[in-house]
């Protein structure tokens, strides 16, 4: 499943983007180092292949439902982890831009969930460990199944963590996990079977392709420690920077506010801020999830939270609704007006 802009908070989105950006940079460097000229057109057309293949639905035998290809594992098998990651990232980017699959802010999450796990975790640590020397039908099937299941479980769990830590959706952690993981287990099995079937197909028709891919990919050179370290560093930096920005320390924001719009706004901002921290309190399902944003808010007793809501009294909320509807109407009118003006000229 894809993460969506609608569910993500800027903090989580930003952190994941930082991680993804780091991975893209690292992968790009490695691909350049590999200096395999043939990969340039190959990556491009394989991306288009995955894109096109994902549009075909097939019926899953014994069930009534249909499935489609993810493709991360096939890419990793044919291209190696770095190139495969870039290809997955490119496919997801185009899908986000043109079909709103997820959105631009959540794109970082999606590339991470659907790219990092299959290419950098499952492929080297699982797939390659199973397929050590020779390829057999059984090995292909087994490794594809295990690889697909695990990478999808990890990806799904990533979605859960990102959604819950964003705090926009109301779905509690436990329910979400119990919803996502089993579904993705089923999807993983299907993906594994499809991957195994396609790899076998290619292997039987043109074994040299698979064999060449196995031998040309310098797996030994993936320094997993470096990758993980880089990720942690990027996440910490991004998380820290963003939490300062959305800082619970009102001074930082107020200062910026004052500079841009004047004193009046400070008052409305206070309300926004208190409600923000109030909400964070409400949505802290896991007590050990420390939201850096809400550090001072944690100090507030529960009672305060309950009383702050009625403080947004009916009067304010009604004005808000009226004002909001009016603004929308004005916007639409402006739009129509502009249109008519264009037609005239």
């Amino acid at each position, binding site marked *: 499943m894809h993460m*969506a802009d609608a569910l993500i908070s800027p903090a989580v989105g930003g952190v994941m983007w930082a991680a993804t950006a780091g991975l893209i940079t690292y992968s790009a460097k490695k*691909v350049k180092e590999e200096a395999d000229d043939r990969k340039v057109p190959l990556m491009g057309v394989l991306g288009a292949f995955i894109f096109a293949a994902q549009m*075909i639905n097939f019926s899953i035998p014994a069930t009534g439902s249909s499935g489609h290809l993810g493709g991360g594992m096939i890419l990793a098998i044919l291209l190696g982890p770095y190139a495969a990651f870039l290809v997955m990232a490119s496919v997801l980017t185009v899908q986000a831009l043109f079909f709103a699959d997820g959105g*631009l802010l959540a794109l970082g999450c999606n590339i991470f969930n659907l790219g990092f796990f299959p290419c950098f975790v499952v492929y080297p640590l699982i797939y390659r460990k199973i397929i050590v020397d020779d390829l057999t039908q059984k090995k292909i099937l087994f490794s594809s199944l295990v690889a697909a299941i695990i990478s999808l479980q990890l990806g799904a769990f990533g979605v859960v963590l990102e959604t819950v830590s964003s705090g*926009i959706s109301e779905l509690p952690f436990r329910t979400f996990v119990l919803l996502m993981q089993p579904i993705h287990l089923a999807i993983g099995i299907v993906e594994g079977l499809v991957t195994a079937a396609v790899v076998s197909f290619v292997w039987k028709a043109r074994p040299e392709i698979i064999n060449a891919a196995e031998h040309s990919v310098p797996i030994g050179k993936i320094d997993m420690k470096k990758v993980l370290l880089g990720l942690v560093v990027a996440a910490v930096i991004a998380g820290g920077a963003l939490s300062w920005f959305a800082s619970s320390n009102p001074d930082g924001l107020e200062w910026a506010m004052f500079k841009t*719009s004047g004193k009046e706004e400070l008052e409305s901002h206070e309300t926004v801020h208190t409600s923000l921290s109030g909400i964070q309190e409400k949505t802290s399902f896991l007590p050990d999830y420390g939201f850096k944003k809400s550090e001072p808010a944690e100090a507030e007793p529960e009672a305060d939270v309950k009383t702050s809501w009625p403080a947004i009294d009916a009067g304010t909320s009604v*004005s808000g609704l009226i004002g909001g509807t009016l*603004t929308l109407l004005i*916007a639409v009118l402006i739009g129509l007006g*502009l249109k008519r003006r264009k037609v005239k000229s």
Partner: protein
Amino acid sequence: MNNIGKNSFDIGYMDTLAAGDSLLHRLDPRAKLITTLLFIVTVVSFDKYTLSAMTPFFIYPIVLISFGGLPYGYILKKLLIVSPFAILVGIFNPLMDREILIQLGSIGISGGWISFISIILRFVLTVTAAFILISLTGFNAVCGALIKFCVPRPFVIQLLFFYRYIFVLTDETERMVRASSFRAFNSKAIGFRVFVSLIGNLLLRTLDRSERIYRAMCCRGFDGHIRIIRSMKIGYQEIIFTFGWALLFIFLRYSNVPLKLGTLIIGVLK
């Protein structure tokens, strides 16, 4: 299955729109990219119960669509197509969050519904902004901007090549699927085995194609580096555009204009 042709037509259509000639089209892609990103980040930064404060943000897509000469109907249609996803995502909120937050006379609106509508609003705004970016700029130009922003070259080159061949591959896939459907008795979805054989063949052909492209590249002196010329200029128009919108976004984000408007009206009515 039947989506294939429609999807590639869709992408192609957005490219056609991007070839238009308006003031907005002629702006440097970097300005449009930055503004779009600022917009999305600002919208998404609202807390989950925000409704009215978000509404002024509709001015951005509306102004851009109008001045860019983009077709409203097309964009709305695209929105509708992807909206079930947003609804699916947000529908849990009203179920889980039942606490009444707003009382309108005898009707109580729960926080869940408010956050649900907020999700929908957020979704509409961010998705429209992305569509508008592509429709006014074109994918290739956006990639050009990415290179200038020091996004790693191998990745952007990948984006360009991939995009170039989307149409070729979707064409090929559509033909294969169509051919197989003429021989199938189940018109719904393809069977597993047929799918595997289809995909397998497509993959083999793709690999062959890659080899032929590589051959053509070598014949024109390819040495591993892809060189692209793009002449881009940042002028005062771009600066006004970007900074103007940025300031507006910040202003709208931190001052709840609709709230003031509503209060004003209620004050007047009283």
